[in-house]
C-alpha cells in the first residue's frame, strides 16, 4: 500500500486508535513519521471533511493545529523554502531535502540516495567488471592468438603514415587519456585495491593529487580531442570496402590470416573514431566539463551534478573499454602499428598487407608517400618518391 508519505503523518494522527503498525513500510523512499503516540487532534472529524486532502498547511493547521502533513508532503517532494542566504552563494539553501527521483537502476527515493544507489550498485561494480572483462578478453586474445603480424618481410621502403602534426596531436590526446583513465580509475575504484595497501591518509593524498590532475587534464584532453577529430576526419569517412571489411570482421572470419583490404583506416578504426572519439568523446567531454564546473551560466545544483556524473561514468567506462582495445592494437596487438604512430613511417609491405587500398593509392601517386617536409635527416632514407 503506497500511502503518500505526507499523509501517513496526517492519518497517523487522525486516528489515534490506528496502531503504529500502520506506518507504511519502505514502499517509498522517504517518509515522515509519527514516532509518538499523541492525544487526539482538536477536531477528530476534520479528516473526513471534504477537501481535506487538498488543504494547504495553513488550512490544515486551522482544523488540526500542529498537523503539518501538507507541508511535509511538499517538502518531501522537494518544495523549496525561504533561506536568507543569497541564491548566488547557496543556490540550494532553501531546499530542505532533495526531491525524490528514480534514476535508472535506483529505487524512487531522495535524489542523493538514488544517485548513491546508481553509483554504488551499478556503476562501480558493473563498470569495474566491464573494464576487468575487457582487460581479460584482451589478455586471452593475446595469449591465444598473439599479435597480428606481417606475413612477408619488410621491403625497406617507407611510407609516411602519420605526419609529425598528426602524431603530436595523437600523443597529446593519448597521454591525456591515459592520465584521465588512471586517475579516474583510482577515484572510482582505488578504495578497493589501493586503500588497503596504502592506508587512509596516504591514499587520500595520492587520490587528491590524481583527482586534481584529472580535473585539469580533462579540459586538455577535450582540446586535443577536437584536434584529433578534425585531423583524422577526412580519412575516416565511410568508404567502399568498409562493409566488406566489417563483414569479415577484419579478417577474423573467413580465410585466416587474410585481412580484407582497406583504405588508410579500416572500418574497425573508423568505428573507434566515430563511436569512440566523436560520440563517447563528446559525451565524456561534455559531462566532464559540467563536473568541472567549466560551463558558464549553468546552475551547478546537486541534480545537475548527479546526472552529469552518471553520464560521465557510463561514457568513460565504455570509452575506456573501447580504447583499451585500441591501445592493445596500437601497442602489442599489432606489429608495426606502434612504430607508425611513434615514428610516422610504415614499411610498404605493412601498408600492403593491412591497408591495401591505401597502398594502391600511394603507389598510384594519388596520395603522396611523404606528406610533411622532412626535417634534416628526419625522414628515413627510402621513401617512395612522389
Amino acid at each position, binding site marked *: 500500500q503506497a500511502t503518500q508519505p505526507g499523509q501517513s503523518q496526517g492519518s497517523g494522527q487522525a486516528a489515534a486508535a490506528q496502531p503504529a503498525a500502520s*506506518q507504511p513500510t*519502505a514502499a517509498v523512499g*522517504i517518509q515522515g*513519521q*509519527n*514516532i*509518538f503516540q499523541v492525544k*487526539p*487532534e*482538536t477536531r477528530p472529524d476534520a479528516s473526513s471533511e471534504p477537501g481535506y486532502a487538498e488543504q*494547504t*498547511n*495553513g488550512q*490544515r*493547521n486551522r482544523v488540526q*493545529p*500542529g*498537523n*503539518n502533513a*501538507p*507541508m*511535509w508532503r*511538499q*517538502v518531501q517532494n522537494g518544495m523549496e*523554502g*525561504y*533561506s*536568507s542566504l543569497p541564491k548566488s*552563494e547557496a543556490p540550494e*539553501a*532553501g531546499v*530542505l*531535502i*532533495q526531491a525524490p527521483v528514480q534514476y535508472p537502476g535506483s529505487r524512487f527515493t*531522495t*535524489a*542523493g*540516495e538514488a*544517485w*548513491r*544507489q546508481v*553509483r554504488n*550498485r551499478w556503476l562501480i561494480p558493473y563498470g569495474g567488471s566491464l573494464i576487468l572483462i575487457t582487460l581479460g578478453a584482451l589478455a586471452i586474445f593475446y595469449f591465444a592468438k598473439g599479435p597480428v603480424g606481417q606475413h612477408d618481410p619488410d621491403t625497406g621502403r617507407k611510407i609516411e603514415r602519420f605526419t609529425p602534426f598528426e602524431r603530436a596531436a595523437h600523443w597529446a590526446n593519448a597521454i591525456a587519456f591515459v592520465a584521465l583513465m588512471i586517475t579516474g580509475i583510482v*577515484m572510482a575504484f582505488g*578504495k578497493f585495491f589501493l*586503500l588497503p595497501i596504502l592506508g*587512509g*591518509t596516504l*591514499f*587520500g593524498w595520492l*587520490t*587528491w593529487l590524481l*583527482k*586534481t590532475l584529472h*580535473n585539469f587534464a580533462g579540459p586538455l584532453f577535450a582540446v586535443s580531442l577536437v584536434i584529433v577529430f578534425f585531423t583524422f576526419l577526412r580519412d575516416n569517412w565511410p568508404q567502399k570496402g568498409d562493409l566488406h571489411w566489417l563483414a569479415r570482421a577484419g579478417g577474423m572470419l573467413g580465410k585466416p590470416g587474410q585481412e580484407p583490404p582497406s583504405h588508410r583506416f579500416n572500418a574497425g578504426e573508423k568505428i573507434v573514431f566515430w563511436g569512440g572519439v566523436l560520440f563517447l568523446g563528446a559525451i565524456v567531454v561534455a559531462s566532464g566539463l559540467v*563536473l*568541472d564546473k*567549466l560551463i558558464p551560466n549553468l546552475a551547478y545544483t*546537486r541534480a545537475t*551534478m548527479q546526472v552529469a556524473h552518471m553520464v560521465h561514468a557510463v561514457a568513460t567506462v565504455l570509452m575506456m573499454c573501447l580504447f583499451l582495445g585500441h591501445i592493445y592494437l596500437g601497442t602489442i596487438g599489432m606489429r608495426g602499428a606502434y612504430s607508425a604512430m611513434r615514428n610516422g613511417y610504415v614499411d610498404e609491405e605493412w601498408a600492403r598487407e593491412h591497408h591495401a587500398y591505401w597502398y594502391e593509392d600511394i603507389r598510384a601517386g594519388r596520395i603522396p608517400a611523404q606528406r610533411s617536409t622532412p626535417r634534416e635527416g628526419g625522414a628515413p632514407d627510402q621513401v617512395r618518391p612522389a
Partner: protein
Amino acid sequence: MARMKFICDSERCIECNGCVTACKNEHEIPWGVNRRRVVTLNDGVPGEKSISVACMHCSDAPCMAVCPVSCFYRTEDGVVLHDKDACIGCGYCSYACPFGAPQFPAAGNFGVRGKMDKCTFCAGGPEEHGSQAEFEKYGRNRLAEGKLPACAEMCSTKALLAGDGDVVADIFRNRVVKRGKGAEVWGWGTAYGSKQAGQPNGQKS
C-alpha cells in the same frame, strides 16, 4: 552507548539563526560554509514553519557510502565524522546527502572545492581530542568536553534539540503530549530509517 541525534521542533523554531551563528562562532567557520542553515517553508502565509538543518548523522549515511577515499567514520556515539587529511574534495558526499549538509570552502572552476566541511555534532575529528590540529580542521570538540552541540545549547527557543536520541525524543514527546498535537520529527525517517532507535533502513548499497 548514546546515539546522537538532532530534532528541530518546527512548532518552536523562529528562524532566528542563533544556531547558525553559534556554530560559526564556536568553530570559526569561514564565510560561505554553512554547517547549519535555517529554511522557512510556506514563508509569509499561514502555516509557515521554519526548520534548522545540518548534518543529521544518518544511520546508513549516503555520504559515507560514496566517498571514494572512505574518509568517513562513525564514532561510538553514532556521529558521522570524516578525515580531512584524506578528503579529496570530490563533492560526491554532497551529491549523495539528502540534506545538503556537506559544504566546501571554495567553489572554483576545475572542480576545486577544498576539503569538505560539515557539521561534526561538535565532536571534532580524528585528531587528538582538544588538540590545536583538531580545532583548526574540525572546530571544537564539545562532546569531549562533556558539552552538547553549541547550536542546540544556544537555540533561542529550544526548538533545536541535540543529544542522545532517546533523551531528545523524550523531551520532544513531552512537548507533544502537552500540546496535544504535532508529532512529526522532521528528517528522522530519512536520516535514521523508518524504524525507531536509529536502526538502519533498507538495504545498504
